[in-house]
């Protein structure tokens, strides 16, 4: 019985997931095409500037850009089901092929930043919450906010100036040195500056959120009960409070993926780090539809999927989440 509902739940969620991805694809597909501007520019580059309208029309027909959008979508959808996501207009090769070598780079950078941001944020939040209003807490709050508002791109350039140009200790660009694609240490060296930028520009946002959540939590009555049992601060925070904010942290983590990815994009363009970021910005700017679709679907997938996972984990941690209360507003 219990198992059946569990399976049912999972199936419903998966269906919801598929539906969400579908809607996302429709929305982006339409949206991208609504934008004025000529996708052929990506394809022909500057040459479009001198193409006659007949030429342009012929090119459009060839690339299937002349059909009504819904026909284009149906076609795209059919092909996508078969794993063919179409041609990147700018790179003139299958969009999948453009993306696949870069996915690794972005995922490595993004996920490292993601993990570090949340690990550090949680640590910092705990340290601050445990010593609320102490000198440490206040100092961290001030420094944190200040750091958070340093524009990422600006910080990136300053770091390059210091570490790459003046001290010459860290590389300023790229994902790895020439011929060192397999060298982990080398990759790490290249990631240090982008990571610093990403961490600094996200850390405090989340640390502060978690800190406040923790502060709310340590004001709850059960903390007193725990204290009256004779537990010490550390035990209370780690065994009680943290557990209760975990669902919040997990939800925050789930919805923060696009935020962190945005950060990755900026870091990538500052550090000329080959990845999906610059590709995305480019594809949106230059109407490289199929490439854009794939990129949005990738992030959409990550976000929607992780929010489903987060929800499931949270229900295990905190069964209250599952009960939906009936609203008196239904009438």
């Amino acid at each position, binding site marked *: 019985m219990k198992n059946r509902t569990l399976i049912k739940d999972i199936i419903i969620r998966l269906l919801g997931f598929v539906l*969400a991805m579908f*809607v*996302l694809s429709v*929305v*982006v597909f339409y*949206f991208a095409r*609504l*934008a*004025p*501007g000529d996708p052929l520019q990506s394809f022909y580059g500057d040459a479009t500037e001198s193409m006659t309208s007949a030429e342009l029309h012929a090119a459009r027909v060839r690339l299937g850009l002349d059909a009504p959008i819904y026909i284009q979508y149906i076609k795209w959808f059919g092909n996508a089901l078969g794993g063919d996501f179409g041609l990147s207009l700018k790179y003139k090769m299958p969009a999948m092929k453009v993306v696949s070598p870069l996915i690794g780079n972005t995922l490595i950078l993004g996920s490292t930043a993601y993990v570090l941001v949340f690990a550090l944020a949680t640590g910092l939040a705990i340290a601050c919450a*445990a010593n*609320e209003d102490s000198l440490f807490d206040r100092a961290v*709050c001030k420094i944190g*906010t*200040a750091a958070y*508002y*340093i*524009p990422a*791109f*600006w910080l990136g*350039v*300053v770091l390059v100036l210091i570490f790459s140009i003046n001290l010459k200790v860290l590389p300023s660009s790229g994902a790895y040195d020439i011929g060192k694609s397999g060298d982990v240490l080398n990759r790490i060296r290249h990631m240090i500056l982008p990571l610093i930028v990403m961490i600094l520009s996200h850390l405090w946002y989340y640390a502060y959120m978690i800190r*406040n959540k923790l*502060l*709310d939590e*340590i*004001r*709850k*009555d059960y*903390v*007193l009960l725990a*204290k009256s049992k004779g537990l010490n*601060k550390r035990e*209370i*925070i780690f065994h009680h409070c943290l557990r209760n904010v975990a669902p919040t942290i997990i939800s925050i983590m789930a*919805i923060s993926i*696009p*935020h962190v*990815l*945005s950060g990755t*994009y*900026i870091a990538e*363009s500052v550090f000329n780090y080959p990845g999906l970021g610059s590709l*995305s*910005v480019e594809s*949106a*700017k230059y*109407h490289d539809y199929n490439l854009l679709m794939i990129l949005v679907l990738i*992030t*959409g997938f*990550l*976000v*929607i999927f992780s*929010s489903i996972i987060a929800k499931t984990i949270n229900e295990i941690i905190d069964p209250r989440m599952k009960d*939906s*209360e009936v*609203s*008196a*507003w*239904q009438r």
Partner: protein
Amino acid sequence: MAEINSFKLVGTEYKTYVPCVKKIPFCKKLKGKPIISAIILAVIIFGCVFAEKVGNHNPTEFYLQNLNTAPNSEFYFGTDSLGRDIFSMIWYGGRVSIAIGLMSMVIISVIGITYGCISGVSGEKVDAIMMRTAEIGNSIPSILLVILIMSVMGEENIFKISFVIGISGWFALARIVRSEVRQIRNSDYVLSAKTMGVGFFSIMIFHLIPNFVSSIMFVIVSSISSSIAMESTLSFLGLGLPVDVISWGSMLSLANKALLLNTWWVIIIPGLFLMVTLNCITNIGSFFRKETNRKHSNL
């Protein structure tokens, strides 16, 4: 007081008791309030509003005889590589940036709160659909979303940029509002308002919003900051305002170029202004947050 009278039965309210309320000194009242932030912010806003009076040069003028001059008595903050006066630009740019921040904030608040309230009071299904929709919107990285919307909107101006930033930034707020509304929608005062026949929008305005506004205050105030920051990022990516509109964002992207040219004033000054302003706004925002949570820690 004579002892003799002391033991007379006099009963209640014999003497109206006036509590001796101690006057709290003015400086103590201000304690904990972000005064410094407020003052700095006021100065900056004042400067921006009266940019024409404050600035001593035309911010759009290229003083081609004064390229890259360090701060001096004529150009207080120096000039950039095209001879523009940083001091004047700061005030004009601040005006644009702050306007963008405020307008985006208004858009974010209006959409986020309304959407969140509706989703919050709706039943299971509508709520789920509304939240999924927001989630889908949110799953596109904001920069991408802004680029997309912007390319649909065409030519940029301050209003459009604010609109775009606002339109792509309300998801988080809607989520928070929704969960706040869910917490209070079945509270007795809302229910009794309903039973007395108060309409939905009245309930939203008089009952729902005032009761969660303090908990979203921080989000709202910091949305000003993040909108300003977003505009500067867009400028950096070359997607910002038209070139002749100066904003702190566009000045920062100048700074980016100036790094290689060793003109520190072009680099430091706009960044400093931006950071100080954002920090002040945030300080004030977190003050509101703290206000709502006066309880003491149990630890």
